[in-house]
């Protein structure tokens, strides 16, 4: 698969897909999208990069081990639920704040943190599997 064209295009394609995955993640609150599908898109972006340029560049590029990323996501998701202990509501209750930044109102919530956690879990675990399979293929 390591053709010249693919290798040249792959970094741009990957960065575009990762960007799009973040977009899908953020739009997921009120429209189709969300952490799971965003994570899948990002994971497939990394998988494409892995197919084009080999597995070790991918591992270098994401700096952390994929499972560590998944772990961080899990932690984030659990943490998003725990925040509610501080405002005396049950576990996992969605809490909202509406800060105004540069005249634009931002709707931030614990659900968003949870969704980012899901994104990272999916990204980490799928990337981990995909990279493991790609590594094996070359042996």
């Amino acid at each position, binding site marked *: 698969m390591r053709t010249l064209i693919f290798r040249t295009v792959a970094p741009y394609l990957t960065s575009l897909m990762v960007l799009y995955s973040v977009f899908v993640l953020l739009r997921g609150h009120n429209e189709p999208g969300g952490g799971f599908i965003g994570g899948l898109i990002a994971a497939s972006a990394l998988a494409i990069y892995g197919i084009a340029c080999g597995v070790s560049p991918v591992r270098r590029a994401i700096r952390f081990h994929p499972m560590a990323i998944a772990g961080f996501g899990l932690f984030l998701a659990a943490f998003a639920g725990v925040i509610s202990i501080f405002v005396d509501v049950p576990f996992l209750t969605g809490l909202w704040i509406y800060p105004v930044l540069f005249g634009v109102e931002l709707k931030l919530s614990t659900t968003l943190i949870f969704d980012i956690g899901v994104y990272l879990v999916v990204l980490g675990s799928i990337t981990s599997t995909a990279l493991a*399979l790609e590594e094996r293929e070359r042996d």
Partner: protein
Amino acid sequence: MEVAVAVLTGVFFFVSIYLILSRHIIRILLGIAMLGNGVNLTIFTAGRITREVPPIIGADAYVPLEGIANPLPQALVLTAIVIAFSFFAFLLVLVFRTYQELDTDDTGEMRYAEPRDEETPPLGY
């Protein structure tokens, strides 16, 4: 509509049970994947197939207008799909590794954990 989907579900179950009864692990695996799909359809049908109108309540109403799709089975099916997907991925890797290590995909030949020629326990000192 429910009848049609129920028949389809029956076909899914039929195929998957046939595949699971096979001796070859890869067929069993495919059977399990089919079984998962059959179950998803079962859940979907159990929630009654009503209308394809999205279950969204307008800004000026408290209850949905007539005839919306039941959102709960969709949520359940989505969860079940995600779970089935991750299990299938895991099983695929596991079965592949097993095939590489044991050099067989025949469950009748997979006797490493329970060897066929196991000694009987000692009867005395």
